[in-house]
């Protein structure tokens, strides 16, 4: 795990949580959209909060795909769930929502879960007995990616 890879994981968590928060802020301006008036979703695109949220979520998706290219799914998901904590902190200190005791316990549990998984290897080698699908000629990098975690 290099510093750059940790930055990608931080990017997944930060872009995802702030992107969601911006969408949520924007949709409060737009109001309720009923299924029979889906065209108002187009109007929502003219909102700067929504646009900012979409840009950040594209960044989130790019970072998420990058992380999955060199780390296990069972590593990326818990490691980036620190985003839930970021959302709760934004809710508390930026949006001034009330954060209950149960939520603080939840934040503590998520943070310890992230600590657990981040201390381990990002990519586990394939078990000996399993037979992965035959490797394609044009993708030799798979062999070098596996196993050097």
């Amino acid at each position, binding site marked *: 795990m290099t510093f*750059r*890879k940790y930055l990608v994981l931080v990017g997944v968590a930060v872009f995802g949580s702030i992107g969601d928060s911006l969408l949520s802020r924007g949709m409060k301006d737009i109001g309720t959209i009923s299924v029979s008036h889906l065209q108002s979703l187009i109007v929502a695109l003219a909102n700067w909060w929504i646009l900012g949220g979409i840009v950040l979520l594209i960044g989130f998706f790019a970072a998420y*795909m*990058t992380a*999955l*290219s*060199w780390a*296990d*799914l*069972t*590593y*990326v*998901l*818990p490691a980036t*769930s620190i985003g*839930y904590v970021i959302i*709760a902190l934004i809710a508390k200190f930026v949006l001034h929502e009330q954060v*209950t005791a*149960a*939520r603080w*316990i*939840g*934040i*503590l*549990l*998520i*943070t*310890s*879960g*992230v600590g*657990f*998984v981040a*201390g*381990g290897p990002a990519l*586990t*080698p*394939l*078990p000996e007995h*399993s037979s*992965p699908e035959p490797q*394609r000629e044009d*993708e030799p*990098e*798979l062999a070098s*990616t596996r196993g050097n975690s």
Partner: protein
Amino acid sequence: MVTASVTGDVLLSKAMKQVGDVGDLWENQGIFRVIAKVLRHPLFSLGIAAMAIAFFALLFGLSWGDVSLIAPASASLTFVGNMIAAKLFLHERVDRRRCIAVAFVACGVVLLAF
């Protein structure tokens, strides 16, 4: 919703493992060839389709259930489902450390709803 979401995550993970380390590819081939390679991968498109189904299933769920119940319950179940699916289909070695991490995060996500 949980099934579609887990399917999407597993397919995307599999696709990106086959594409290879994006950082290395970027240095060797340039960013545009990397993006083209990812977008052309058939499992990537399938993964996106599964994610879209999951999104609409979530909207449907939100129409009959309370958001404070549906959102954390589905997120939490998705974590656990992903762990099982990753072990079964991606052959990831899910050791005790990762089991504990997933359990902690899943419980934490539920608590955030209160």
